[in-house]
């Protein structure tokens, strides 16, 4: 089996400051990888570099494309990368405002990616949007409402529907449950877990919340000061942490 994503020696600096450094890992098809670490440890920087939103200084991000097999996404042309970004990849932002068009209806938000890849039949686009709203537990009668009229949890579910409608294989999520009430978080986590399992998605989930990775991730990477200090199967890392920093994290001393 070939890895879906193969990352080598990825480094991104902001001037003299390290964003992330020397990150190397593989993601296998159908696998969910959690990236944990305290605030400022480089999680978002790493995720942005992987998704092509930020250009790293060095390293490679090789993705197993459907059409042409393994390709370094950092050296492919921008149109190709942007096309990946709205077809085979998905990106769920922590703040739904960053991932939704707030002045466009829920149906239009879900339909956008379909229209971006050439869908030109209104009835079909609307039917697909309606189906996806149902899958993320948004009532069909809200299809013409704008996300500004939605609760935070609904906005996040809409963002997920908007991303998954083109059948991506790889989903990037940056703190997908951050900023939500605890009860809302639990429902969203259940939904994400069901979707990932039913659709056989691969995912990279960034979070500072160990409960999130405990529930969703097969494997964990622990980051500190831009570097990966420990990695392994989720249960192993959480139940028997090797690195002193991970031990602190798990004992929730850092977990405030």
């Amino acid at each position, binding site marked *: 089996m070939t890895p879906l994503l193969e990352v080598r020696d990825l480094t991104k600096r902001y001037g003299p400051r390290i964003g992330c450094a020397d990150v190397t890992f593989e993601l296998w098809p159908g696998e969910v990888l959690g990236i944990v670490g305290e605030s400022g440890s480089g999680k978002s920087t790493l995720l942005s570099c992987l998704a092509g939103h930020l250009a790293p200084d060095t390293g490679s991000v090789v993705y197993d494309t459907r059409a042409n097999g393994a390709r370094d996404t950092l050296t492919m042309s*921008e*149109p190709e990368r*942007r096309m990946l970004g709205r077809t085979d990849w998905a990106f769920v932002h922590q703040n739904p405002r960053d991932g939704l*068009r707030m*002045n*466009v*209806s829920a*149906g*239009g938000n879900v*339909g*956008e*990616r379909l*229209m*971006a*890849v050439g869908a*030109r*039949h*209104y*009835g079909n*686009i*609307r039917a697909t949007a309606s189906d996806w709203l149902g899958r993320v537990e948004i009532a069909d009668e809200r*299809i*013409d409402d704008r996300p500004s009229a939605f609760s935070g949890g609904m906005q996040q579910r809409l963002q997920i529907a908007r991303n998954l409608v083109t059948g991506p294989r790889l989903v990037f999520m940056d703190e997908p449950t951050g900023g939500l009430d605890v009860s809302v978080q639990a429902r969203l986590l259940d939904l994400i877990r069901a979707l990932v399992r039913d659709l056989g998605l691969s995912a990279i989930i960034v979070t500072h919340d160990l409960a999130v990775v405990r529930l969703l991730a097969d494997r964990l990477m622990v980051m500190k000061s831009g570097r990966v200090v420990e990695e392994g199967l989720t249960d192993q890392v959480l139940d028997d942490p090797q690195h002193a920093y991970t031990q602190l994290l798990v004992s929730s001393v850092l977990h405030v």
Partner: protein
Amino acid sequence: MTDMSQDYNFAYLDEQTKRMIRRALLKAVAIPGYQVPFASREMPMPYGWGTGGVQVTAACLTPEDRLKVIDQGADDTTNAVSIRKFFERTADVAVTEATSEASIIQTRHRIPEQALSEEQILVYQVPIPEPLRFLEPRESETRKMHALEEYGLMHVKLYEDIAKNGHIATAFAYPVKVEGRYVMDPSPIPKFDNPKMDDCPALQLFGAGREQRIYAVPPFTKVVSLDFEDHPFEAGRAAHDCALCGAGDSYLDEVIIDDEGGRMFVCSDTDHCRTRREAGHTGALGVPEAFA
């Protein structure tokens, strides 16, 4: 007596500025529908009065030209009259109200009813040149979308229209795709006029003064109005005949005719209406021009 022509530049703009605008026009013609930036000059009229169109006209005008200026189809509105006077004064060019006699037609919000010819240039006044602006306010992002031909967002706008109104309700500034490549805002002409842009023998030039953009549709270029398979583009038109000339195929304005709320529909293209009446056509409320 001093020679006044030494003190004033032909058509107001200095030669260097006109050359700069012509370079932008050439680029625009070479890349149909692509918005070319240009250094828009201060004109002796406010933005919104067609300063972009005026600069394009000034750069195209020669002493031999015959100029027509229309505003919403009419030659006699304040805006049209003042632009026409401006060029009479600064370029001493001949003017006309007859579409067929004009070599350059500057327009705000209409395309003449009479078919244009290869000898003619149509200059549009454009308030907002960016068709993607409605949904994507970031200029850096819209530029990238044009460059990479990422036009899905244009259909999101039409989707929203149908979701809200049951049909595509956009009636003005209806977006088009030019020569299968660039999506373009045709300025706030009624969508009724959109089909006239397609395969048009005349050169069509668009000038946006405040936004500093020029774009063009060269003669005989494919111009297609965007739509959905199950909601095809329809030019649309009020279901009336012109009350004055009886035309059943022209774009109509609704006019209030008395204090009791009486209304009539008349051609928005005043030259077209008059030409028809002169030829003896009469509508329900009209009298032939010869007897008027």
